[in-house]
């Protein structure tokens, strides 16, 4: 240990002085030395009850000077670890961004509405219809409309039976010729009906198609509107215009419309659409209502959305006799409607999309995009209104930069020319006949151009980008795997490995930007990032191959042990199945439980739980395990059972995805304010506050246990006084929030004011606590020695009786050095008064104390964002991670000088627990399940126009578990060292009197705990890097699996309902986790730096 040396404290009685009476020449005698260890261990005995934790006295010496010279190097290494992790994260981000830009079809929703007062184009309308009642822009030709929407009515379903190709024999397909009434009408009344093939835009899923049909826009997956809480359409749409024009809109059928147009219908009959196996419920439900409603006459617009054809396609495919039956039923419906139609009514029969030969839809194949459109009326002719489109384009291009500027400009020119012609046409009616076709052609060209441009930017999967993004993700995972194996080997070239890729990345970026600048293309940030990532990845690979890969076999690259790999693979395979993604909330605790039992069983299997004499048959004899068990078997078993229990209890807070009808969400997820019954509410409130207090008490107890609470440093003062204040604020806020409605009127203002102030105060307190922690992270109690030191020993970082030759080899030189030091000290003391000795307590847990404090401070504001009863889950979360850390620490051996590693099983279990907590805090990876109320915590009046703050609050609510577990990730490395002291303390007898304890020969010396990490800073940083890379790998593989699932299953029925949201949640979760990980590791680094400077100051103070 280079900083200071273990010492028995200056004021301790001196049980160790017998040692010094040894004659100096006898020191070399091996026989004598062999007897020494028990006595020697007595020297560093613990004399001070209550102040546990490692104590160190700082002695100036040669080692300090070395530390100072190497301080700069250490800082460099710290920075490069962080930068390396940041670079890996950047590669991941670039991959995610590239994939997302190819996969997600995004579009901004504009909330402009056109109105009747605003004419579509310049000048007055030629047909001059403004004055007429009920007219808007144009006179209406029909006063009523019946819109029959047959889901998945492909164009050829409306075709007659006979085959088109004359040479071939006629084939009898079940879906042909079943809509015979259409044919009959077309033949008998050719002037009253039209049948069109309508070409629809992909994605051909029902909700997107409905949006497109009613808004006249292109369908996309994500319409980033102002109201992203529901699917409701905020754009200008037909239904909205109809209702605002005073028409009565009656709807019956698919309940998707309920989400899209909440409250828009004067009368509505919704039927559930999810069950695709059910062919008849929706249709029969509609048929029950359709004719009575029609006959009652209380409607202007009647919309009937039939789902049977679509469900039949999903269930049987179009070639099934069932399809013929279904189409015949539709035919009867149409016939019935035609008979009931009055003269002022228009009948529209339309399909929203087609279906493939297998009956699926969602993609853009010819069969999917061709839908039938049938109109029945005396005549049909539709003048178009292109000015709206032009206005939309102008507004849209101002709002976003999506659209290609050049093409937009061309279109603008085209439009202005056309509208000029149009104006001219209006003013000079003489030559109208001649110029009309050119104007129409120009306008049509304009529309087509606009459509093509929008499709280009909105509505097409870019397979190249998706593949590129997936490839980048694979590359990033590969980096993680490679570097995590490489990082702990001593020849890991930190700086060149980091600097060269970054330099190349910069060069690549600049080259790409320059190239784009030369050929004058628009700079795409996503592509730029991808280019930078690729150009930095390739040199890394080359360097890695040159430096490492060629020397070692590739097999060492895949170091994940079998069972862990199996569980991991299973977890990844889950992302490819719709049902498993939906059931992930249940599957994750199962996997976590398996992991826990696996850990316990593995501990037993390795023989670390039982004393070796039990494990070997007496007659086998020699196969004794090398290391004695550090824990009793019951201890690990208790931990395992406790973990399982916690997992099971956390599973009680389960929110069901909407796809599983049989499942019931936990009633405990709702806020207390929604509860009726004062008594139950009070009980629950009490439980929540108790959970809060228990959390607080647990953290304080933990800090007290390791002694860090006794430190007079500001963070610990904050923990002592600030944390209870935060808990008080939280409890008061809950009380206000749950009983806000019952407050007497004169207190209303006070209550609302308090419910605004309290959460902000808690968040502010947490922020100030974190700032204090960052400012002074070293939480140790320093006591100056009362007098001159009587002993000074070099370190003896050894504990337990020496059992092997190796231990003896280690202990014996220590004793020798100790005695040498002792004599030197005596000599010095005779010369002059020795330097002051300072004893610092709790250095052994200084890193983890800072981490735990930070986690608690983070947890409180996050807790406030959730519903009250989730506080129980947070308590379980802390308990669970505490138990898991203990269980993992029981299996991780402490390699004293050497490279520290965190095994894969630990990192995997940690990541799994983060996922489990995500679900048990009442979240689901679907958009309707987001807890929107979190945006109003502390802002009961809303946020005004500010959007980033509510987004931040909701994001913090949703990804709280990701954040907490990522920040807490370094604990995985620190905990085994913490448990070192615990293992020793466990073995001590119940605290008897001190004198007896001191005499006992089994007495252990104080363990070094986390100072072991400081002893080998190089290994420490390498281990942190490795830990970060491993965690990133686990998360990265998950996001890769999600991306692959989304791209492979992009034609899946559930892609926009299950896979795409899952991918988005995983991606955001990954970003939050990686940021949290960087923060956590930076915090450890900060503590390390502070400890260094603390030692340095101490050293300087001593010298003076």
């Amino acid at each position, binding site marked *: 240990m280079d900083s200071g040396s273990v010492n028995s404290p200056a004021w301790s009685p001196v049980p160790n002085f017998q040692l010094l009476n040894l004659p100096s020449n006898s020191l070399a005698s091996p026989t004598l030395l062999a007897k020494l260890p028990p006595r020697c261990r007595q020297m560093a005995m613990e004399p001070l009850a209550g102040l546990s934790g490692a104590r160190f006295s700082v002695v100036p010496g040669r080692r300090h000077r070395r530390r100072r010279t190497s301080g700069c190097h250490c800082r460099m290494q710290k920075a490069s670890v962080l930068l390396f992790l940041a670079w890996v994260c950047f590669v991941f981000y670039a991959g995610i961004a590239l994939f997302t830009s190819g996969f997600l079809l995004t579009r901004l929703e504009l909330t402009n509405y056109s109105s009747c007062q605003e004419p579509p184009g310049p000048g007055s309308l030629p047909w001059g219809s403004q004055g007429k009642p009920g007219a808007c822009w144009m006179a209406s030709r029909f006063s009523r409309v019946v819109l029959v929407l047959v889901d998945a009515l492909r164009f050829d379903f409306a075709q007659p039976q006979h085959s088109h190709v004359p040479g071939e024999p006629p084939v009898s397909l079940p879906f042909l010729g079943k809509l015979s009434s259409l044919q009959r009408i077309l033949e008998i009344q050719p002037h009253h009906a039209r049948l069109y093939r309508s070409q629809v835009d992909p994605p051909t899923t029902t909700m997107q198609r409905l949006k497109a049909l009613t808004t006249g826009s292109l369908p996309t997956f994500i319409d980033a509107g102002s109201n992203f809480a529901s699917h409701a359409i905020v754009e200008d749409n037909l239904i909205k215009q109809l209702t605002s024009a005073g028409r009565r809109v009656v709807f019956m059928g698919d309940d998707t419309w309920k989400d899209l147009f909440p409250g828009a219908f004067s009368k509505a009959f919704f039927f559930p659409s999810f*069950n*695709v*196996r*059910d062919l008849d419920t929706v249709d029969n439900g509609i048929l029950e209502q359709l004719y009575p409603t029609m006959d009652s006459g209380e409607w202007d617009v009647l919309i009937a959305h039939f789902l049977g054809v679509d469900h039949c396609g*999903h*269930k*049987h495919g179009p*070639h*099934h*006799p*069932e399809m013929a039956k279904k189409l015949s039923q539709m035919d009867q419906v149409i016939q019935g409607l035609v008979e009931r139609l009055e003269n002022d009514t228009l009948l529209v029969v339309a399909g929203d999309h087609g279906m493939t030969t*297998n009956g*699926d839809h969602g993609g853009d194949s010819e069969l999917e995009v061709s839908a039938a459109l049938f109109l029945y009326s005396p005549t049909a002719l539709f003048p178009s209104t292109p000015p709206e489109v032009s206005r939309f384009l102008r507004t849209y291009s101002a709002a976003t930069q999506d659209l290609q500027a050049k093409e937009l400009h061309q279109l603008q020119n085209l439009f202005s020319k056309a509208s000029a012609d149009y104006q001219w046409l209006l003013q000079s009616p003489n030559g109208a006949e001649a110029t009309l076709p050119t104007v129409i052609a120009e306008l049509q060209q304009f529309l087509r151009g606009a459509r093509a441009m929008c499709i280009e930017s909105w509505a097409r999967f870019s397979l190249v980008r998706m593949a590129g993004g997936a490839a980048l993700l694979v590359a990033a995972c590969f980096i993680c795997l490679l570097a995590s194996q490489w990082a702990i080997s001593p020849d890991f070239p930190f700086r060149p490995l980091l600097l060269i890729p970054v330099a190349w990345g910069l060069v690549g970026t600049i080259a790409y930007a320059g190239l784009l600048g030369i050929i004058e293309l628009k700079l795409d940030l996503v592509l730029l990032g991808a280019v930078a990532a690729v150009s930095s990845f390739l040199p890394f690979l080359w360097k890695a191959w040159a430096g490492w890969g060629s020397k070692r076999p590739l097999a060492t690259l895949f170091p994940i042990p079998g069972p862990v790999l199996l569980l991991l693979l*299973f977890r990844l395979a889950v992302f*490819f*199945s*719709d*049902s*498993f993604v*939906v*059931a992930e909330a*249940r*599957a994750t*605790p*199962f996997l976590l*439980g*398996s992991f826990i039992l696996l850990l316990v069983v593995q501990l*037993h*299997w*390795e*023989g670390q739980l*039982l004393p070796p004499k*039990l*494990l*070997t*048959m007496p*007659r*086998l004899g020699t*196969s004794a395990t090398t290391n004695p068990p550090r824990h009793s*078997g019951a201890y690990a078993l208790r931990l395992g*059972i406790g973990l*399982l*229990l916690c*997992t*099971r209890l956390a*599973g009680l807070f389960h929110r069901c995805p909407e796809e*599983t*009808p*049989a499942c019931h969400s936990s009633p405990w997820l709702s806020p207390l304010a929604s509860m009726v019954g004062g008594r139950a509410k009070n009980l629950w409130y009490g439980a929540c506050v108790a959970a809060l207090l228990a959390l607080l008490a647990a953290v304080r107890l933990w800090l007290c246990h390791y002694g860090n609470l006794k430190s007079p440093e500001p963070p610990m003062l904050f923990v002592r006084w600030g944390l209870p204040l935060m808990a008080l604020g939280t409890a008061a806020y809950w009380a206000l929030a749950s009983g806000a409605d019952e407050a007497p009127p004169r207190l209303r203002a006070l209550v609302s004011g308090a419910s605004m102030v309290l959460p902000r105060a808690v968040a502010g307190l947490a922020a100030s606590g974190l700032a204090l922690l960052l400012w002074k992270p070293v939480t140790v109690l320093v006591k100056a020695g009362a007098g001159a030191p009587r002993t000074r020993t070099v370190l003896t970082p050894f504990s337990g009786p020496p059992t092997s030759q190796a231990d003896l080899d280690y202990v014996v030189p220590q004793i020798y050095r100790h005695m040498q030091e002792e004599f030197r000290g005596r000599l010095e003391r005779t010369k002059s008064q020795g330097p002051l000795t300072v004893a610092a307590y709790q250095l052994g847990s200084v890193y983890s104390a800072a981490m735990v404090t930070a986690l608690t401070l983070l947890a409180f504001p996050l807790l406030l964002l959730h519903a009250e009863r989730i506080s129980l889950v947070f308590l379980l979360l802390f308990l669970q991670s505490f138990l898991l850390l203990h269980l993992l620490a029981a299996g991780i051996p402490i390699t004293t000088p050497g490279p520290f590693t965190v095994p894969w099983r630990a990192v995997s279990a940690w990541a799994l627990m983060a996922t489990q907590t995500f679900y048990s805090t009442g979240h689901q990876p679907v958009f309707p399940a987001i807890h929107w109320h979190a945006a109003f915590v502390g802002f009961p009046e809303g946020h005004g126009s500010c959007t980033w703050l509510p987004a931040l609050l909701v994001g913090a609510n949703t990804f709280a578990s990701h954040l907490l577990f990522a920040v807490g990730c370094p604990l995985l490395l620190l905990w085994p060292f913490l448990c070192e002291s615990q293992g020793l303390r466990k073995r001590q007898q119940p605290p008897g009197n001190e004198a007896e304890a001191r005499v006992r020969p089994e007495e252990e010396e104080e363990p070094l705990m986390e100072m072991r990490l400081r002893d080998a800073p190089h290994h420490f940083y390498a281990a942190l890097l490795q830990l970060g890379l491993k965690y990133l790998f686990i998360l990265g593989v998950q996001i890769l699996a999600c991306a692959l699932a989304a791209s*492979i*299953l992009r*034609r*899946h*029925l*559930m892609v926009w309902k299950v896979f795409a949201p899952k991918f988005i949640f995983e991606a955001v979760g990954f970003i939050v986790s990686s940021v949290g990980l960087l923060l956590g590791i930076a915090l450890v680094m900060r503590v390390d730096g502070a400890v260094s400077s603390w030692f340095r100051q101490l050293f300087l103070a001593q010298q003076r």
Partner: protein
Amino acid sequence: MKDTDIKRLLYTHLLCIFSIILSVFIPSLFLENFSILETHLTWLCICSGFVTAVNLVLYLAVKPNTSSKRSSLSHKVTRFLKCCIYFLMSCFSFHVIFVLYGAPLIELALETFLFAVILSTFTTVPCLCLLGPNLKAWLRVFSRNGVSSIWENSLQMTTISSFVGAWLGALPIPLDWERPWQKEDIQMSDAERKFLASHPVDSLHSSMERYGPSPVRLERPLATWLALLFHHSGYTGIESNLRTRTINWSKGRYFFVQIL
């Protein structure tokens, strides 16, 4: 010595397999409406009874460990009672573990308990037969270097693979084949069926193209397939037991050949 042991091992395993097969067929002679799928609880009881009986008989017949020093009647009785208590305790502790693993606490309690019973018959009963009510010996056998005879080796393998099989049995549960609309079979046209039967590779290809690797509509056939695999056998650990027994059997033959 070893040779005879291996032979005995082979016969005991064959007998165990035979007893499981018998437990499928024999009850249908006596009980009406007996089938594995419909009356699975009865079958579970009968199966565990058969396996326990066979294990006991084999233990009495083969006596792999003949190191019982005291053989007084009272000793035997206490030993037997102890064994019963151990068995019950293992049933209850398995039940607790299943509940902790996510099995519902109140509803389906009978199913969960019967599952615990049958898992106990496949794991605890052989342990009791072979090692007696001696927890330390059990712990020894289930650690890395603790196996001292071929009997213990086979015990270790069968028990561990029973657990693994029971674990695997939980995997198809999330597949949504229990939904009402998934229960009826997908009706295929005759032509389609003929086509699929005659072109297995094409059918796989077309179904992949049609459904993707695991979309909604494939899950019903996938689930039936997995359920056939696991629902009776994997779910109760028999599947893996059988497999291990085969492995053991081949291992035994290997030894046999080596010895010869």
